[in-house]
């Protein structure tokens, strides 16, 4: 397992390298944003520990560039500020987990193990509907290769629609699939989620069949290869 540690503080970097080395990982170190970007972009790491406050290029920018260049390596970000704005920005840029400084080394190792476990065993059959693609193992969906940002409920709804694409699915069926308890099933829940999904995947992909329910369809001119 090869891990890249991006940290500008020499003492912390030395400690992290030592701790990760002791845990059996091969560790590379980048002291600034530019070098980190280069290494992450060119070397096949299994995971990256990325400090957000870096000289030359900040951590969020580095992460954004990697993700834009389709570097899918799981990234754990280290932040000193612990402010939610920073966490949200980090996850927005494509982080997989975060740790707030100061942290205990055991915690970092535990998080890293979880990250590696999650990213292992990818390649799984995915669902497709036109340009819409859903990977159930990674719980990710894309349109034309662009990743969609979906909450779990939205993802679950899309997954269900994709499994039954082309078929009209009633509201009751959808709401029963989304919630297991009756008191959650208020009447406009499904409209809310369908509305949000349409905003994200494109309004025409989900048809409303009056009085019956909804149907997921491929757009005209898109080849469906299911």
């Amino acid at each position: 397992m090869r891990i890249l540690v991006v940290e500008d503080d020499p003492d912390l970097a030395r400690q992290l390298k030592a701790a990760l080395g002791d845990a059996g990982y091969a560790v590379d170190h980048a002291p600034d944003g530019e070098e980190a970007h280069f290494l992450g972009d060119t070397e096949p790491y299994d995971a990256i520990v990325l400090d957000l406050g870096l000289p030359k290029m900040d951590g969020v920018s580095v992460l954004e560039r990697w993700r834009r260049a389709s570097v899918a390596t799981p990234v754990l970000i280290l932040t000193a500020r612990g402010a939610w704005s920073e966490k949200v920005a980090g996850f927005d840029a494509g982080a997989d987990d975060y740790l707030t400084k100061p942290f205990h080394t055991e915690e970092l190792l535990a998080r890293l193990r979880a990250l590696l476990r999650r990213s292992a065993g990818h390649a799984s059959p995915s669902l497709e509907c036109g340009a819409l693609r859903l990977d159930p193992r990674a719980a990710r969906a894309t349109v034309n290769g662009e990743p969609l940002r979906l909450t779990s409920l939205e993802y679950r709804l899309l997954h269900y629609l994709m499994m039954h694409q082309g078929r009209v699915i009633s509201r009751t069926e959808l709401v029963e699939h989304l919630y297991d308890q009756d008191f959650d099933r208020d009447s406009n829940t499904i409209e809310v989620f369908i509305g949000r999904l349409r905003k994200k995947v494109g309004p025409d992909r989900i048809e409303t069949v009056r009085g019956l329910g909804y149907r997921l369809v491929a757009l005209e001119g898109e080849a469906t290869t299911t």
Partner: protein
Amino acid sequence: MTELKATGVSASPFLGRRAARAKSAAAAPPPKPRRQPSLVRRLVVLHAVLSAIVLAIGGVTLSAFFAERSTAAFDERLGDDVLDLVRGTSVDETGEVAAPTLTDARTGYAYSGKYWELVTPGEGGPVHAIDRSRSMWDAPDFALPAGGAPALASRAGKTFYYDGMGPAPSGGASAQPGAPAGKEHVRIAAELVHIAGVKDPIIFMVAEDRSPIDANIRTFAVSVAIALAALLAMLIGGVMLQVRFGLRPLFRLQREVASVRTGKTDRVGDDYPAELEPLASELNALVAHNQEVVERQRTHVGNLAHALKTPLTVMDAEAQARPGPLGDVVRRQVDVMREQVDHHLRRARASARQQGGGDRTEVAPLLEELALTLERIFQDKGVEIDWRAPDDLFFHGERQDLLELAGNVMENACKWCKARVRVTAEALDATRFSLTVEDDGPGLAAKDRAEVLQRGARLDETAPGSGLGLSIVDELARAYGGALALSDSHWGGLMTTLTLPRGEA
């Protein structure tokens, strides 16, 4: 004339003033004890006073001119009568003077208002009447003009015009009702003529009741006064409109500044007239400066945190690598320092917020961001966050702060839930909204809830590591004038309700 004008002047501006006051009172917060009069009022009152003075002068001048012209025309007719009298007068051999009959029939009736008289000036004494119109009856002779006979004599052949008393009592046909009792006022034309065959010069005098022209003059003055008062009212109305329209950008600026304060906009517009433009740009600069100061403070605080936290991590790891009493002490102290740093960071953030203000933040996208982030963070646990918020709901405050408030409460719910978290934002009224976060976790006993809600950082100290982390939320919510409340959720877990200021949509 002048009095009439004066009342006309004072009535209208008072109305205008009162209207202006009522308007400003409706728009402005409670009046301060010694407030400057409003601009509208100043301009309107000043304009009213100036217009009144100008119009009064104009009215007086106009009336005086009319009186002068009327009298001159009247005099001209009297002069013609004098001329007729002089031409028609004949002298017989005995030196007896015979006056002609004037065409004006009124001279034949007593006290008719039209009179003539021929007199000869005596030696320095009273005049001696030669002949007089029948209309004069037994009245005394007319007075001579100022300077008496010598003045007439020095300019023989020239007609003198002057006012005098007539024979009839006032109150005749043309007299004004209510006029003081006394003799009628007449206009007299007198001319001294030397007639061949008569030793003494003869003074020819024609007089006529002047009350008709006086009445004309009065009527004219009253009409002018009424017309000018109407004009004044229109001018004042006009200037009020003018000022209202002219000062419209000022009122707009006031509204815009208010919406900057309430966070509806973050700056005032640029399209102001040249006079207000500097004020508008100064205001924008001030707002920008304010935001910059707040931002700078936060950056400083963040920098301090960053500067301290990395060394703390290093010390912690170093201490862990060297087990023993020293290592234990260092680790414990590192934890204390970390709590201290967090605590002061929160305080600094809360005070930075109080100086800021003005921003507003859309709630729905922010909840979505947080839901996405937290589901990612709690991926292994498989937490599902069901969030609901109307699209037109805004938080009156900064995005960072709402992120802190909602982020911490939602993270807390994610930590304690079994799998489900529900977040609901709803408008309560025009100025507040609620953010409710429910989880399906074990919940919190009523006794513990009270403890959680106790103020300050105590919670973190009493339950290190496992604290609910709600004290930061409580503190920040209070800085916003909001509140934090705890109760049971649908699922028996904890329900956290934040009440926060609502921004205008």
